[in-house]
């Protein structure tokens, strides 16, 4: 099996290498990929959408349908993780707690357990001692990561950025909180219900922006129709429509990243985890 695999790989690799000799050189300005559609995008972005960042305008305007369904794919992936893994929290007969002032470990029976407090700290199966440096450093860093994420979303028209990148940064900040403290602490501040609702809301904002254009009497996702709503001309309205759509993408990506992390790290129990 191993030898057969290596042979297949060798054959595939050599064939691909031989035929890439026909491909255009690296950095060739006249390669087929750069000559048909992309000159149009580069030349017409400013007069069509008033967005200097060509990537953003292609992403949310010229290829708006593509991005809408990419967002839907992300939502579907989050739902798939939820449906595959999520199980109800079972009643546990006992739990272990650590009495903070004395450092004594207590085993508590029954179904009434104390909440986490300054005195009692719950111990998971893979419990490690509280690390002061890591948790305080993360608490210091997380607000700055979140502000940067908002900047990346809001400034996507004029600099590298946009909904996907900002959304992933925002999701990473909450995941960092869950890793540096505990999964339960993260779920307490950003619950699973919030994640599920926000991921659907993000896709709804995107599709809703498209539907709003329909209501204003033009085709789906033609943001020029929103000019009366924003109170400016038809070209600037496209720029604002792109911003609305990017916000929808950012909300959906943030929520789905967090949701997938919650389910994967605890294998669906959302009680103990990384």
């Amino acid at each position, binding site marked *: 099996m191993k030898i057969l695999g290596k042979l297949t*790989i060798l054959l595939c690799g050599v064939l691909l290498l031989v035929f890439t000799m026909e491909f255009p050189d690296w950095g060739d300005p006249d390669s087929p*990929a750069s000559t048909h559609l992309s000159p149009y*995008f580069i030349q017409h972005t400013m007069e069509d959408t008033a967005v200097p960042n060509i990537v953003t305008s292609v992403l949310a305007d010229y290829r708006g349908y593509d991005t809408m369904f990419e967002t839907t794919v*992300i939502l579907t992936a*989050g739902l798939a993780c939820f449906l595959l893994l999520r199980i109800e929290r079972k009643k546990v007969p006992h739990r272990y707690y650590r009495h903070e002032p004395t450092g004594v470990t207590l085993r508590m029976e029954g179904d009434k357990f104390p909440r986490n407090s300054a005195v009692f700290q719950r111990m998971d199966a893979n419990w490690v001692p509280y690390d002061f440096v890591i948790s305080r450093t993360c608490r210091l860093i997380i607000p700055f990561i979140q502000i940067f994420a908002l900047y990346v979303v809001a400034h996507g028209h004029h600099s*590298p950025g946009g909904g996907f990148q900002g959304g992933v940064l925002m999701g990473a900040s909450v995941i960092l909180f869950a890793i540096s403290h505990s999964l339960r602490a993260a779920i307490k501040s950003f619950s699973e219900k919030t994640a599920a609702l926000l991921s659907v809301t993000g896709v709804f904002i995107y599709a809703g922006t498209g539907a709003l254009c329909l209501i204003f009497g033009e085709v789906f996702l033609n943001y020029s129709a929103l000019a009366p709503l924003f109170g400016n001309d038809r070209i600037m309205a496209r720029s604002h429509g792109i911003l609305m759509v990017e916000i929808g993408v950012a909300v959906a990506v943030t929520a789905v990243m967090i949701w997938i992390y919650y389910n994967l790290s605890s294998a669906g129990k959302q009680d103990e985890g990384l």
Partner: protein
Amino acid sequence: MESIFSLVLAKANYAVYIILMMVGLYAMIAKNNLIKKIVGMTIFQTAIILFYVSIGYKRGATIPILEHHASPETVAHGAEKMAAHAMDAVDVAHYINPLPHVLMLTAIVVGVATLGVALALAIKVYNTYGTVEEDEINQQLRSG
């Protein structure tokens, strides 16, 4: 000799992506552990992303963000004037191809989300069979 060397160097980006892709494909074919197969799939995906990004590159070109200066008067006069201002000269050879970047931007995030689904399936397999080794799963399926 020199011509062959320059020929190989001009296509070096394809060689890099093919090597990475074959590493990923080998992991997907020959590895026994499901998690290692998933890692191989991710390496394969990264190779495709690198391939697309390298296609978009043009020699001597900059990132696909048009040079613009938002002075107070263009903001006051709205987009039409700004567009007319920007139309002066947009040199296509000056900006790299934005299209592969757009495609890969979404592919990376969708890739992470689908990786989550793959890992969820692996957890499910582990819960059912107690292992993620493929031959042990096959053995259990045959015997029971």
